[in-house]
C-alpha cells in the first residue's frame, strides 16, 4: 500500500483504540472482595452484647445475659440464636469465643442447596432464602461446621443461621454484633484488610497470639477470621477441616455425569446390537449357554 493508505489505516486503528463512553473512570469500580469479620478472642470479655444485638436485630430469642448462667456450659448456635459466646478455661486464663456461621468463600451449604436457597452473595455473606427452601436439610449434612439449624418445631420451618446482617449491609451499616461489641474484639471489613490487621497483630505480639489465623485457609478460606492466645483445638474449633474447599469433594462425581449420560447409552446400545440373535437359533428352542 502507499503512504496515503497507510496513514488512513493507522488513523482508523488509532480512532478505534480511543476509549469510548462505556468505560467508567470513577473509583466505584475498584476491585472488591468478600467481606468478613475478624474476631480477636484476646479482646473479648464475654459480655455477650453481640448475642443480644444479633437476636434483637433478627427477632430471635434475646438472652438475659445478666441472669442466665449460659457461660457455664459450651453451647451451640440454635434455631433461636444465630450466635453464642462460649467460655473456655485455658492455661492463659478464660478465653471467650464467639461462634456463628463462618461464611466460607466456597460454602458447602451453597453447593449442596438444590434450589439455590443457600447462596454466597457477591458481597460475601452466605444467605438463606425462605421462598426457595424446601427444608430438605442437605445443607446441614454438608456443612463441616454443622452451622445451619432447622426449626423442627414449626409447620413452616426455617433454616436458621447468621447471615452477616445482609440487610443492614445493604443499608451501609455494619453487622449488629460488630456494632454491639464494646471492646473492639470484632472488626468488619474486606478479608484483605482483615488479614493485614490480623497478620500485623500476630507478628507484632508473638507472645500474645498463636501463630495461626483460623479461617485463612480452613475449608478453602472463610469470611470470619479468628485470633487466639492458645491453640484453637482448646477453644472448641475443629482442626480437621482441611484446606480444600468443600464443593471440591463432589467435583469428581459431578464431572463424571456428562460422561456417563453420553457414554453409557452408547455402550448399552452397542451391546444390544452385538447380542442380536435374529440370525441364530430361534428363541423357541431355549436359551443356549456359551
Amino acid at each position, binding site marked *: 500500500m502507499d503512504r496515503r493508505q497507510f496513514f488512513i489505516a493507522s488513523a482508523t486503528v488509532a480512532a478505534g483504540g480511543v476509549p469510548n463512553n462505556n468505560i467508567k473512570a470513577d473509583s466505584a469500580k475498584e476491585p472488591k472482595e468478600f467481606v468478613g469479620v475478624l474476631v480477636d478472642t484476646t479482646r473479648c470479655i464475654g459480655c455477650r452484647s453481640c448475642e443480644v444485638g444479633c437476636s434483637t436485630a433478627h427477632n430471635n430469642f434475646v438472652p438475659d445475659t445478666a441472669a442466665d448462667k449460659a457461660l457455664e456450659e459450651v453451647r451451640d448456635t440454635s434455631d433461636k440464636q444465630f450466635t453464642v459466646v462460649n467460655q473456655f478455661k485455658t492455661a492463659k486464663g478464660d478465653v471467650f469465643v464467639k461462634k456463628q456461621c463462618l461464611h466460607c468463600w466456597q460454602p458447602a451449604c451453597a453447593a449442596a442447596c438444590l434450589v439455590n436457597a443457600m447462596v454466597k452473595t457477591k458481597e460475601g455473606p452466605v444467605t438463606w432464602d425462605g421462598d426457595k427452601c424446601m427444608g430438605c436439610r442437605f445443607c446441614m449434612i454438608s456443612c463441616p461446621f454443622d452451622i445451619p439449624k432447622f426449626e423442627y418445631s414449626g409447620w413452616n420451618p426455617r433454616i436458621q443461621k447468621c447471615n452477616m446482617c445482609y440487610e443492614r449491609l445493604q443499608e451501609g451499616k455494619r453487622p449488629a454484633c460488630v456494632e454491639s461489641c464494646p471492646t473492639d474484639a470484632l472488626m468488619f471489613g474486606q478479608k484483605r484488610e482483615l488479614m493485614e490487621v490480623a497478620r500485623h497483630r500476630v507478628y507484632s505480639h508473638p507472645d500474645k497470639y498463636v501463630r495461626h489465623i483460623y479461617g485463612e485457609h480452613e475449608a478453602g478460606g472463610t469470611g470470619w477470621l479468628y485470633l487466639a492466645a492458645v491453640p484453637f483445638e482448646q477453644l472448641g474449633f475443629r482442626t480437621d477441616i482441611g484446606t480444600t474447599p468443600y464443593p471440591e469433594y463432589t467435583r*469428581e462425581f459431578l464431572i463424571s455425569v456428562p460422561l456417563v449420560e453420553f457414554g453409557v447409552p452408547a455402550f448399552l446400545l452397542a451391546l444390544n446390537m452385538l447380542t442380536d440373535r435374529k440370525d441364530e437359533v430361534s428363541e423357541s428352542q431355549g436359551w443356549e449357554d456359551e
Partner: protein
Amino acid sequence: MNSTAVFNGELKGFLRFLLQELKPRGPWLTTFNIISIPTIIAGLIILYFRFTLGLGSVTNLSQQYPFGFWIGFDVMTGVALAGGSYVVCFVVYVLRLEKYHSIVKVTVLNGLLAYIFYSGALVLDLGRPWHIINPIIGNSFGYNSVLFLVSWHFLLYMTVLFVEFSPTIAEWAHWPKLQKFLKSLTLGAVIIGITLSMLHQSGVGAMFLMAKPKIHPLWYSEYIPLLYFVSSIFAGISMIIFEGSISSKVFSNLIGPKSHHAHHDIVLGMAKGAAITMFVYYFFLAFIFMHGDKWKLIDTPYGYWYLVEVIGFVLIPCFMYAYGVRNKNFGVIKVASIMTLLGVVLNRQNVCLIAYNWNVPVKYYPSWQEIVVTLMVVFVEIWVLRWIITRMNVLSKE
C-alpha cells in the same frame, strides 16, 4: 355417531370398568390386612401431627442428625433395594438373556412402586414440601448440588419405569394400539433407565462426600458413590430372589407351571451374579481400606462394627450364594439373600446415621412414630402391588 359421543361412550365405559376393578377380590381378614390396616391408620394420624406441629413432634431428628430414619431407610435403602429393575432390564433387553424375561414385568413394577412410594416418603420428610416444585419447574436450579442431580434422576427414572410398565397397563385397559406403541419404546426406556440408575444410585452416596469430617473414616472414602452403585446391583438381585420367593407362594395361582420351573433357573442365575458382584465389592472395600491405611481403626468398637458389616453381611453371604449356586441349594440362597439385604440396609444406615457425626454425645434413634410411618408407606405399597398383580398381566400365566 360423531366423535364426541364415541369419546363419552368410551370414557363412561372406562370408568365403569375402573370401578369394577376397584372392588376387592379375596377375603378381608387376612393376616396381612389385619396388621396393615391399623398401621396405615396410625401412620395417617401421625402424619397429621407432623404437618401441623412440625417434624420435631413426631421424629427424633436433631440439629446434629438432620437425616433420620425416613431418609436413611425409606429413601436411601429403599432405592438401593429397588436396583433389581435396572439389573433385570439390562440382562434381558441389552444382553438378550431371554431366560429372565418372565420376571421383568414384576420387577419393573416393584421398582416403579418403590420409587413412587419412597419419593413420596421423601416429601413427608421435607420441611416445606410445597416448595418441591422449585427444582422441578426451573424456578431455581442448583446445578452444583448432588441432590439436584439425584432428585431429577429420581423423577426421570420414575417416568422411565412407568413407560416400561405402561404396555401392561394399556393391555389391562384394553387399548392394544397404545400397548403396541408403548412396547416400541421399551428398549430406549431401558437404556435411559440404566444410565439414570448408575447416576442416582451413586448420587445417593455422593451426597455424603462433603460430610468428610463428620463420617467415621472407616465408612468415608471418595469412592462412596461407586460402592453405593455396586451394592445396589446385588441388593436389587437379592430383593428379586427374596421377593420372588414370597410372591411365588402368595400369588402361586397366577403363575403357570412352566414359569414355576423356570423360576429355579432364574434364581440360580441371579445368585451367581450376586456372588460375583459381592466378591468384586468386597475386594474393592479391601483396597479402599488398605489405600487409606485404616488398620489402626479396626481395634475399636466402630472397627468391630465395620467388620460385622463387611465380613458378616458381605463376605459370608457372598460365599453362601456361591455354595448355593454350586449345590443348587435354594434354602441357602434364600438365607443369603436375606443376609445381603440386611447388609445393604446396614451399610446405608451406617453411612447416614451410625457413622455420621459418630463422635457427637447425643446419638439418634428413630422414634416409634417414624417407624410406624415407614411401615405405613411399605404396607400401602404392598396393597397397591397386590391390587395391580391380581388385575393386570404381570405374572406369567404359562
